[in-house]
């Protein structure tokens, strides 16, 4: 794996956004060949989305030939609800960029046949040619998307019941009322994300430090599902200093020492203006 450590949240967000920007532009997407991007929600990627929007507004990046697949969505939450992941993606990303709405896919948690919806989503990813870059986050319990502790590491898109930890963590978006938090969600499986050609996990904040430790310094374990990516050929973890608080000094020193190598991935930063 690559472990990219930046000083704070803003720098980590910027690094991640630059990386995504370079990957898209290097790919030279076109009408015959779309770049497929897996996307997360939550407070962690918020800064990254803001940066990507900024790049777009400056004319350096276009999403015209990008197809996106979101990781998850709550079950039973009205799509227009301000906390639905559809609302999140619309307000924090889609409405500010030039993506074709037909190319933005998010699981529908209000459909009657949830299983069929999950299968259709998997098919859609396959038809799009698989995911080029899947961006994700990590839960305090080490989960990727809503693959809660105990999820199969080869799982596919399916319905999951949320763990207590997750419900508590999300309560802050529902007025701190636990009863208002949805209890189920549709989520891509660990296996689904593992199928991506490249994976980037964003991890910021001291409250995620223990999960990061479990994910990269301990073994592959279905109780900490992000650990599955130890077996992916191309994973980048982008974090801030606080997220490394539970790691061994040796690990942190090693990867910090590699920053000059990592930074070649975002410097020079490319622009469509040059094409």
């Amino acid at each position: 794996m690559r472990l990219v450590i930046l000083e704070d949240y803003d720098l980590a967000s910027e690094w991640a956004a630059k990386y995504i920007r370079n990957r898209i532009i290097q790919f030279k997407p076109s009408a015959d060949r779309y770049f497929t991007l897996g996307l997360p929600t939550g407070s962690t990627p918020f800064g990254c989305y803001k940066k990507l929007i900024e790049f777009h507004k400056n004319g350096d990046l276009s999403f015209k030939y990008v197809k996106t697949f979101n990781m998850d969505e709550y079950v039973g939450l009205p799509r227009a609800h301000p906390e639905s992941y559809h609302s999140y993606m619309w307000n924090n990303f889609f409405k500010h960029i030039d993506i074709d709405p037909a190319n933005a896919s998010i699981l529908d948690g209000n459909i009657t046949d949830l299983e069929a919806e999950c299968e259709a989503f998997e098919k859609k990813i396959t038809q799009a040619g698989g995911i080029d870059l899947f961006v994700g986050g990590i839960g305090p319990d080490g989960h990727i998307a809503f693959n809660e502790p105990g999820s199969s590491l080869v799982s596919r898109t399916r319905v999951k019941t949320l763990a207590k930890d997750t419900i508590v963590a999300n309560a802050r978006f529902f007025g701190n009322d636990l009863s208002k938090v949805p209890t189920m969600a549709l989520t891509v499986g660990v296996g689904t994300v593992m199928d991506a050609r490249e994976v980037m996990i964003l991890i910021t904040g001291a409250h995620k430090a223990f999960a990061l430790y479990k994910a990269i310094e301990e073994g592959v374990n279905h109780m900490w599902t992000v650990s599955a990516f130890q077996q992916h050929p191309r994973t980048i973890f982008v974090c801030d200093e606080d997220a490394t608080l539970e790691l061994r000094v040796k690990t942190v020193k090693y990867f910090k020492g590699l920053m000059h190598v990592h930074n070649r991935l975002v410097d020079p930063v490319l622009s469509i203006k040059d094409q």
Partner: protein
Amino acid sequence: WKMPTNKSVSKAPITQFVNCRILRDHKLQREDLWVREGRILDPEKLFFDEEGYADQRVDCEGLIIAPGFIDVQINGGYGIDFSQATSNVRGGVALVAKKILEHGVTSFLPTLVTSPPNIYHKVLSEVKVHSGGVEGAGVLGKEAVRKDVDTSSYVRLVLISGHDIQYCIPYNCCHLEGPFISLEKKGAHPEQYLRSFQSGGMLDLIETYGTLDNVAMVTLAPELPNSEKVVRELAQRGITVSLGHSVANLSQAEEAVQNGASFITHLFNAMLPFHHRDPGIVGLLTSDQVPQDRTVFYGMIADGIHTNSAALRIAHRAHPTGLVLVTDAITAMGLPPGRHTLGQQVIEIQGLHAYVAGTKTLSGSIATMDMCVRHFKQASGCSVEQALEAASLHPAQLLGITRCKGTLDYGADADLVLLDDAINVRATYIAGQEVWRK
């Protein structure tokens, strides 16, 4: 750049107003405004349900977009007097409707002052509800009529229930200020045409007005005997009852509100002054006898002449959510200084003042709605949002038409006014079409 419309739900073109600040949820927000088929469109639904986007973008260059202003008390303007039965009543209304677009007014209630029955009979039969367009601001009914987009005729359509109101029933249109008002507080109204409810109430009304079909609001004095039945009956019919030109005490005013009255015509003017042991009609602003689920609204002529700024502030601070800006504009609005007719009387313009000729009684104002909004903001020290809402949201709430007018909520009519930060009107839109630009 331009992006084509996805035509899965509707073939109608979509306009996206960008680079603007819109008034929504009582705040100016940096958001784009989307319009299709004359209504505000939900872009999130458009994106996810229809996978659609805009056909054309309008760059607002940083301007404010507010809901079009609504004037519920305007007696005429530009030489037109709504209380005169001319040979071309409709033409007169249409002329004013077109001119007031420049002031950001997209909907209004033509107002008739105290007049003899024949005037009411003639005018009310001619003035009809219609929605606005390039020809001018819309004459309002209780619920705005939906203009058929494909033809130019005005269609009576049926109310379809559900949160997505497709069509509204056309209802009423005029504001009748009088003749059932108090002699002592007649103001500029002609004394010989004042009336009382001597035949019991509704009979007098029908006899005087001829019809209640095109009536949206009636101003009356609640202390007149038999008024209670009238207030109740009018309110039940969905006609807004306003208290004004009256010497009612607070109890009488409160009783009228309990019977259904919901508006005060030009607060402070033509009513008893506030007294600390009997605040009169003014006391309604803070009365505890107003039913819980209802709001008493009050009209304010914020032209700097009809109300002292300190009095304006007292009213605003006492009851900010009830304040409705009105122009009470008369025939002479928009005309040069001199003598002009208002109802059955002659008035005289001197600078920004309009008097009953030969007296110092104010005859009405010649301020325009945008002037009133600016003056109100400056005099009260309120926020831009509050000033704009006093001319849009509040009158819409008063008339119960907020589903279609007075807001920029999804599904509302796209009647818009584009303003700069000094609240000068730069452009006016009705049903998403530009109808005036500076």
